């Protein structure tokens, strides 16, 4: 087997709990994004566009959708004889089975996978972010400066710096200190959770970390500080460009609204950096003579009989006559009835919104369900849900996945209200 210089380990096990019902049944990397993609597509496409053709995807939380999506890696040209994509799920060992208890532990438990590939370097990635990045350039820097570890950083506004892991560097870009979510940040260089390690060294640190009972087995909190303590050469690689953690409903919505602008911050139309994803088998979309679309992104298989403004519409969506969809995200295969007004709403896959439905009505009110997750104007309707005719939803409403008309006790849900499955439904 030809030895690979670098392989990628993609951590895709996170729930992304702040996306609420959108990640109730699937992991955050599998959430639909940008009119056609799932969030993990951006990282997978970065890998293949950077020339990395061996990727281990570490799954844990709700992996079904992710497994189906990745398959044998065909859409990314990752169906390879040597390398390609491998799904690495937690597994049973002789004595006991263990979940991945942290990012470093997840990699530790798959040391044998990396050993088999026997690369010189590994790049640790997460499947949670939307960005385009050439990892080959980062590797060049890692090699040129003979680093033990290279951490990709991005300059963030000072006020936001306390939400990130902050790297404090000397004049030459060597990392001298790492602070996780510091109250008074000394720098604005935030870690993007992208690390290149020389495998031999990382392997040693993972084994040492595994036996420490007080460790969280986390790259940011344990491995990096341990390397710093030992005086290893850790360097910061500055990334300039678009990078978003679309981890809250607000950022998830806002960043997609930005895609509809004339010159979006994130360019999906770059022919030299294509974003790959399984292509649904659908014909080109159709705008009828009653349809009107402006400032929007529309995917294949859609049939638009109504009006769409400032919205992102995924494949196979039907929007019926006399309906207006504004400032909304409608995911795959959802049907929106006639004479409805859908505003400031995210609708999940395969749902049905009836006729004469209004959403995003009235003024914002705090969520009576979970204000930590639902705290902006956006109303969220889950997947495989049916919203009956004549329903009126306010702002910041949440409707669960798999809701049927029987679950609605009233056809008016005021702002901040909710319809949830099971006993959560009060």
């Amino acid at each position, binding site marked *: 087997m030809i030895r690979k210089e670098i392989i990628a380990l993609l951590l895709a096990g996170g729930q992304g709990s702040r996306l609420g019902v959108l990640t109730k049944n699937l992991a955050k990397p599998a959430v639909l994004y*940008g*009119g*056609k993609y799932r969030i993990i597509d951006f990282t997978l496409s970065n890998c293949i566009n950077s020339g990395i053709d061996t990727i281990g995807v570490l799954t844990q939380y709700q992996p079904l959708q992710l497994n189906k999506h990745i398959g044998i890696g*065909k*859409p990314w040209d990752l169906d390879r004889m040597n390398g390609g994509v491998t799904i690495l799920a937690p597994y049973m060992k002789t004595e006991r089975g263990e979940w991945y208890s942290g990012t470093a532990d997840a990699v530790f438990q798959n040391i044998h996978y990396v050993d088999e590939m026997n690369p010189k370097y590994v790049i640790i990635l997460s499947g949670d972010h939307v960005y385009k990045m050439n990892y080959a350039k980062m590797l060049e820097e890692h090699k040129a400066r003979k680093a033990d570890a290279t951490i990709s950083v991005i300059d963030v506004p000072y006020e936001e710096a306390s939400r990130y892991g902050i790297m404090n560097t000397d004049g030459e870009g060597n990392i001298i200190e790492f602070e996780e979510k510091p109250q008074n940040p000394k720098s604005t260089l935030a870690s993007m959770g992208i690390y290149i390690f020389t495998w031999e060294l990382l392997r040693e640190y993972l084994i040492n970390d595994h036996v420490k009972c007080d460790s969280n087995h986390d790259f940011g909190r344990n491995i990096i500080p341990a390397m710093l303590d030992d005086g290893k050469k850790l360097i910061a690689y500055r990334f300039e460009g678009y990078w978003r953690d679309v981890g809250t409903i607000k950022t998830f919505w806002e960043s997609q609204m930005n895609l*509809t602008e*004339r010159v979006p911050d994130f360019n*999906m*139309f770059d022919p030299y950096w*294509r*974003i*790959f*994803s399984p*292509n649904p*088998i659908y*014909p*080109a*979309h*159709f*705008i*009828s*003579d009653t*349809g*009107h*679309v*402006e*400032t*929007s*992104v*529309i*995917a*294949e298989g859609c049939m638009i009989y109504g009006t769409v403004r400032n919205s*992102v*519409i*995924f*494949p196979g969506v039907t929007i019926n006559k006399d309906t207006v969809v504004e400032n909304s995200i409608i995911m795959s295969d959802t049907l929106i009835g006639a004479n409805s007004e859908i505003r400031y709403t995210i609708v999940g896959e395969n749902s049905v919104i009836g006729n004469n439905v209004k959403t995003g009505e009235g003024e914002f009110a705090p969520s009576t369900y979970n204000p930590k997750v639902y705290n902006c104007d956006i109303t969220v309707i889950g997947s495989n849900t049916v919203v009956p005719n004549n329903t009126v939803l306010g702002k910041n409403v949440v409707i669960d996945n798999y809701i049927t008309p029987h679950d609605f006790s009233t056809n008016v849900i005021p702002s901040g209200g909710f319809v949830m499955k099971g006993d959560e439904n009060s």
Partner: protein
Amino acid sequence: MKSTMGIILTDGMNNRLKELSLERSIAAVPFGGKYRAIDFVLSNMVNSGIINVGVITQYNIRSLMDHLGSGKEWDLDRKNEGLFIFPPYLSEFGTGWYKGTADAMYNNITFLERSDEEYVLIGQGYAIYNMDYTPMLEQHIETGADITVCCRDMSDFSIEDQKRMGIVEFDENKRIYNFMEKPLKPKSSIASMGVYIVKRTFLIDLLQDSVSKGYSEFVTDIILRQLDTLKIYAYMFNGYWRPFSTIQLYYRTNMELLNPKVRQELLMDRRKIFTKVKDEPPAKYNSEAKVRNSIIADGCIIEGEVENSVLFRGVRVMKGAKIKDCLIMQGSEVGPDVDMQYCILDKAVKISAGKVLKGDSEWPLIVGKKVKV
């Protein structure tokens, strides 16, 4: 229909579709925003369970080969069976350039001999339709026919179009007793769709016999000459079917996709039409976009007005441009304030600012591949 293998005949050299077929076989002509003509017969075969398919090609095969590749989009990249492409070749026994459809099949008789399916379905690469071949095979077996010819009532075509078809007459048992290729005065409106089912071993016999007599065409030399001796039956198909035999039919077929019924039957059926995919982002509409009654593929960016048109992948329509009744193929750019009606733009055409291009509904204006206007 695992018991059946498929052969797809693609056309000989012709310029029936004018500039569009100069550099490509008609089977490779783009259609409906993202397809090529051959996708339909190929998807029909796959959807009917035929997984051993040979495509016989001769002229301008590059774009067709490029499109078909390993056949993975049709799930035909198989260890056994799958997709085979047969361009002409030279050998001691072969006859070189294919002289006709029968000759072409005869040259690839090894493919027929090495396969083990009981029946062969022969189809054409130039027609647009969504059909399950299973009932046709059932009828073929039931009637004990030697050859079953798929036919259709062509009343929805003009007499001129019908004159270009193979018109058939059959008795109450559907046995064909008259078959006129391109008649001056069609005696009926029933015509052959160029789709045949025949037993594999029998086809081998027919081809060997015919070529030894110096014949080369499947229809004129095999079917027509043996109408009395062979049991040749018609199977009637009643669905939507359009051959790309003239530029008018090509244009009309694309435009008919704007009809919801046609689109439903052809493209939204549970029997899906597969094609080679490109990884384009979804289409983007800017604030000035006005699109009505049109089909728009992925990767388009629209800032102008589009009406009654079909836009293929990656088309750019700039501000102030007005496009009506047009077909615009992959990667073409329509500049600001361009005014176009009844035009067909081949791939990667650039129309610069302010140009006015008007064709006629019967004679759409064709702008060839990569032309800059």
